[in-house]
């Protein structure tokens, strides 16, 4: 199949790769750019494991052809650490045991960050409502909710 050149700005770096137009963004990130932190759990947009930020907005990378992201800025889980410092959401997931197998975790962390961007001080109920598009099979969600609330407290302390 004919491949096309696709340039993406991933985690702050421009990268160009060849891919067929039918290749979904998640496959290109994982298999062509080696960013395997973005996971595929369903490939039909239900589980949220493949969540990435596209031009700052949370999207499912399994529901997008990579060619559609031509020229876009993409943030994956690998791009959250800044100067060796973890994002507070990453720290909170570990501190509050918000992960077990870790497969949903990259998507969960990105969804949590996106939530706090829109609602910096959510209630537990708001976390559950907003993050319902991400499925976890291990934790029963309670400690994920605690993680997001913990990260919110931490981030609000820093900004206030």
């Amino acid at each position, binding site marked *: *199949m004919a491949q096309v050149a696709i340039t993406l700005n991933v985690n702050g770096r421009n990268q160009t790769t060849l891919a*067929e137009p*039918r*290749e979904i963004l998640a496959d290109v990130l*994982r*298999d062509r750019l*080696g*960013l*395997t*932190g*973005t*996971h*595929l*759990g*369903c*490939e*039909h947009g*239900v*589980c949220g*494991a493949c969540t990435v930020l596209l031009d700052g907005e949370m999207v499912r990378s399994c529901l997008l052809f990579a060619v559609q992201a031509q020229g876009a800025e993409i943030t*994956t*889980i*690998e791009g*959250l*650490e800044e100067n060796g410092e*973890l994002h507070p959401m*990453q*720290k909170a*997931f*570990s*501190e509050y*045991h918000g*992960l*077990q*197998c*870790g*497969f*949903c*975790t*990259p998507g969960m*962390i990105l969804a949590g960050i996106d939530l706090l961007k829109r609602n910096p001080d959510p209630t*537990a109920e708001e*976390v*559950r*409502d907003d*993050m*319902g*598009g*991400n*499925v*976890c*099979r*291990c*934790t*029963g*969600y*309670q*400690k*994920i*909710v605690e993680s997001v609330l913990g990260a919110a407290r931490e981030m609000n302390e820093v900004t206030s």
Partner: protein
Amino acid sequence: MTTTEWIGARAPRREDPALIRGRGRYVADINLPGTLHMAILRSPMGHASINSIDASEARTMDGVHMVITPDDIPDHITQFPVVWRLPGQKDSGIPALAEGKVRYVGEPVAAVVADSRYAAEDALDAIDVDYETLDPVTDPEAALEEGAPVINEDWGDNVAIHHVFAGYNALGECHYDAEAFDNAEVTVRGRLKIGRHSGIPLETRGIVADWDEIHGRLTVHSESQVAHLFRTELAASLGLPETAVRVLTPNMGGGFGNKWDRYPEDLLVSIASMELGRPVKWIADRREGLMSTVHGRAQVQEWEMALQSDGTILGLRGKVINDLGAHLHSVGIGPAWVTGAAAPNQYKIANYYCNVIAAATNKTPASTFRGFGGPEGIFGAERMMDKAAKRLGMDPAEIRRKNMIQPDQFPWFNAAGAVYDSGNFPACLEKALEAADYDRVRAEQKELREQGVYRGIGISSYIHVSGFGPSPILGYLSYYTGGYEGSTVKVDPNGKATVYTGMIPMGQGTETTLAQVAAHHLGIDMADVRVVWGDTDQTPYTGFGSAGSRSNVAAVAVIRAVEEIKAKAVRIGAGMLEADAEDLEYADGMVSVKGAEEMRSVSLAQVAQQAYWAHALPEGDQPFLEATYVYDPPNFTTASGCHVVVLDVDTNTGRITFRNYVIVDDCGPVINPLLVEGQIHGGVAQALGGALLEEFVYDDEGQLLTTSFMDYLLPSFTDVPDMEIHHVVTPSPHTDGGFKGMGEAGTFPPGAAVANAVTDALSHLGVEADELPITPSRLWSLIQEATR
């Protein structure tokens, strides 16, 4: 944390730093140079014979390297065996591809290996299979009827086994008394159904096989929960010496038992890699994951309970029909057997009888799934307790109190052959009732009902026979593997320790747990312990691996290996300190003269150095400071507990809303409370899925209707309530540390607790929630029938 008291600490997980950075390494992340990709052509029909397969076009397509049809499989390749082969059980195996006929939707028919998964799927479209439809059978009871279509011709019928629990306990005593049922003041009957569902790890199955022609070595990157047994079986099926096979298990994205089994694709990628001389990778997509990874739980149960009018149980007997699916899988009918063994639950039931029948149906094989038949047995027991209470006009808590095995009655020999080692069942019940404020909620329930709010309270007590298991007993049960767990602990010349385990971490924090145990007993910092797992070339053999809630078994192996190291450290230390070994003790990573710890002591590192220099070793001791201990537990450990759920039912829509969820768990002493809470939360959520949402639905033709996450519904954030966890601690009397298995217990009681609560909420209508999942539509129909 500066402590050596690691056991009991909420130690953060050492698995986390990689996983929160997206630096975990799962099978799908492994891209070896030259990797080819496999896609599988699966049966679109429930039951059909295969007249022919024409793959000629697919073989010539661009990017296609190989097409595997049954004719392409070398003759010496054999099926994977069934591991648990109870006497009287039909024989079958797990073939690489369907042989002459397909028996379920999703059964592999052919495979394509191509440059990319995209290209491989393109070629699947070009394979032409000529099927001839056969009559399907999808209902397990219909499958048992005379004249039903036979799925496995060599069986003669669809009965995989008819196993009878005739009331014998482990002492060989039998108290089954049919007359007691005839003469009882009260008998209560129930017919219960549990829907087909499964573990559905968020990471699907996947495997990479890499054949090295020069060295004659097959390296397999797999998510097997039991890598060593997998190695044994894979080598045998491929006709390779076992030394030729190495199984590596990287991070696993959840297993839940489903990844304990062997699968056709394991053979297919291996065959392809050996033929092509290149790495071959297959990752299940979600659709094929739902149709080809083992299902579980599906049962029809019929029970009869005999009681005195005061609520004393005189006997329990019943029939369990297990919807097995098309053929036996790795564990045979094991889960259904466990259902029969678990159903007496926490109660003094000596008069017991249970027929367990496994029926083949044109569905995906049912096999290993977290809880392994136990949750099904608890569902039966606890629904029957509530039915009996209702009949007698007793409070559901009271009837449980009245019949519970008391703390001074252990070991308890249950009437299905299980031996409960310890527990305090009444304490768990009372604590749960107190935490749920049971009396107040009962009082409120009446008032709310008058306002049109239908609130229900459901109790479910449970036992979980965990920590599989004593190898001789597994032999007695014709379970062809061992139940021991080994551990090698090595202290390096600088005094840091490495633990080697055959256990496979699948998310439950095994690495952290075993590091805690080793650090605690060595008296050193947890950071100074490394845990090696996931490589059959390095780790001790295990026939069981991660299944059956057995981190507790692995923990004892670590403790005992550490004890041997400490004893050797004392012997070496004696020479260094010029003292008698009897005058020395090992504590906090130091060997010291008792009473003079400040003055005369040497550190583990100093001892280790001597152990490797070997300049002056005690007589009879070899260099190195390491030990291997293989622990074969003398008995199972019995975890137990009680859940109390409070919920509201909207009678207009059948919607259930949780109001409270209380858990009391007794898994003995807790190694890491953080991890134990996580395991319980996750187990409960998974069971609530099966209780309310999850079901594999087949139509009468055997077509699977739930092949996406739009149809097979996993619980999400708003479907799982906040849970309140309390502990009762009854140490196992026979394991070091008293630890009991706990990874599965959360899955045991929720089904019954929810069904009991729903039934309680609708008691004014006489609705009995006897079928899981209790979907809104199903519950609405029950309410309609009751009010008609």
